[in-house]
């Protein structure tokens, strides 16, 4: 079911701030060479935690992007979003002053928001008293602070929103941005996700939930989606912002079109707040809906960027969903999280960015650390080494706690 007169949606810029690299060149170089961004936790002393590893963003200096007086007003997750937005605008060849500001929208998702500042200020209250809590805490920690701050810093006055659906948040952001362009609410949208939640409190909760890999002695081998010996995800952080534009206005300004968003699909598991549906029914529904929205047959999909977090249950559920949609001939399906770790609310846009780069380079990023097949996962996971592949259309999946599923279909420009 396609609507013939809706506007087409181009992707013209990618701004990654990730544990494997900042900026498209470093990010893509790491992915095609199978480099992991995981290592020992450095942001705080994690000695008392059963998990002592994470995928942190290295060498991040917000002052390369924003003057110090303004930068200090933004929590770390908003700072990631800002840097990612600047990188994406540059990649798209857009100066912030180029477009009509009223025609530029912003949608930045996050799973958790400014929890680092929350923990710091909560400690201040308990140790020193309520008088010593920062007046800026609430304004900086709210999940929508990144989207609002980007508008304040860049002056874009179009639609502005925040999607909060845990690890599907930036998948939903891309879907939202696609709607705005299709229906004419905006010509350009800065869309993506940001997360900076590697803090003692969130780490403790994920540890209690047994969600994280405990392979502390081999951090770069800890995230191993689809491998039989996977034991949980690697906690990551970062942001990726994509520049979405109406294809007609992008072409009119002579933009380099990287890919086109053909459609997306959304669904809910309606099953459990954290456990995936055992047969992947919700995930399959999202992929099927994305194909329908894009007007595609399953056989036209040449690559699938899986959500695949490296948890024992989640990867099996997604593999079953993929088989349900694609039958006996599923497309090659690799897991970017094997290298980046799990960026939670920033995972979806980061992986759609990786998928766009895969399309542009006709090269599939691998699933690293794939050593022992899991008999329940019957997929070509592009094991351990990037692979040249001729393909025109790809899907990228994002699923979140709460049972939210997003699948996005992108095509070569």
């Amino acid at each position, binding site marked *: 079911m396609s609507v013939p007169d809706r506007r087409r949606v181009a992707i013209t810029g990618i701004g990654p701030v990730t544990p494997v690299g900042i900026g498209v060149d470093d990010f893509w170089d790491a992915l095609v060479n199978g480099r992991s961004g995981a290592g020992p936790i450095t942001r705080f002393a994690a000695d008392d935690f059963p998990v002592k590893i994470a995928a942190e963003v290295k060498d991040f200096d917000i002052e390369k992007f924003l003057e110090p007086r303004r930068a200090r007003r933004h929590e770390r997750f908003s700072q990631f979003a800002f840097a990612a937005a600047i990188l994406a605008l540059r990649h798209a060849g857009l100066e912030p002053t180029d477009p009509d500001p009223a025609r530029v929208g912003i949608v930045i998702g996050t799973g958790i928001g400014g929890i680092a500042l929350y923990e710091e200020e909560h400690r201040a209250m308990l140790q020193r008293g309520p008088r*010593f809590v920062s007046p800026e805490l609430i304004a900086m920690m709210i999940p929508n602070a990144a989207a609002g701050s980007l508008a304040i810093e860049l002056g874009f006055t179009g639609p502005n929103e925040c999607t909060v659906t845990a690890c599907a948040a930036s998948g939903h952001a891309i879907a939202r941005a696609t709607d705005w362009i299709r229906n004419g609410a905006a010509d350009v949208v800065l869309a993506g996700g940001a997360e900076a939640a590697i803090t003692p409190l969130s780490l403790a909760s994920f540890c209690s939930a047994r969600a994280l890999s405990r392979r502390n002695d081999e951090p770069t081998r800890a995230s191993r989606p689809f491998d039989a010996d996977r034991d949980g995800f690697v906690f990551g952080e970062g942001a990726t912002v994509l520049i979405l534009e109406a294809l007609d206005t992008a072409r009119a300004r002579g933009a380099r079109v990287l890919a086109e968003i053909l459609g997306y699909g959304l669904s809910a598991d309606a099953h459990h707040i954290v456990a995936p549906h055992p047969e992947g029914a919700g995930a399959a529904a999202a992929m099927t809906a994305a194909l329908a929205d894009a007007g595609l047959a399953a056989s036209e999909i040449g690559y699938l960027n899986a959500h695949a977090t490296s948890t024992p249950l989640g990867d099996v559920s997604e593999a079953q969903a993929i088989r349900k949609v694609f039958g006996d001939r599923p497309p090659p399906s690799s897991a970017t999280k094997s290298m980046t770790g799990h960026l939670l609310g920033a995972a979806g846009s980061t992986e759609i960015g990786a998928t766009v780069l895969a399309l542009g380079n006709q090269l599939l990023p691998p699933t690293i650390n794939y050593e022992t097949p899991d008999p329940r996962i019957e997929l070509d996971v592009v094991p351990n080494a990037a692979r040249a592949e001729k393909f025109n259309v790809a899907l990228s999946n994002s699923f979140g706690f709460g049972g939210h599923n997003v699948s996005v279909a992108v095509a070569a420009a």
Partner: protein
Amino acid sequence: MGKQEFYEALRNVLVSRLKVEPEKIKPEADLFEDLGLDSIDLMTAVMAIEEEFGIEVSDKELEGITTVGQAVDLLSGKVGVGA
């Protein structure tokens, strides 16, 4: 504790916490016009000084404070400088 000590403490908070350029800070500098602070910045700075020196400043006392020098006078007055 002399005024100089409060001046240095305020200067330190403005530079390290609020990222004000050090060369802009002078007794006659206007906190809002010259240093670019807003009311939340001023609260943040005053809270840090309150904590460092164990003093308390009311919102009412802060009203009308516009320069670095006035802020130092207010803060140092809290511990009876020269008394």
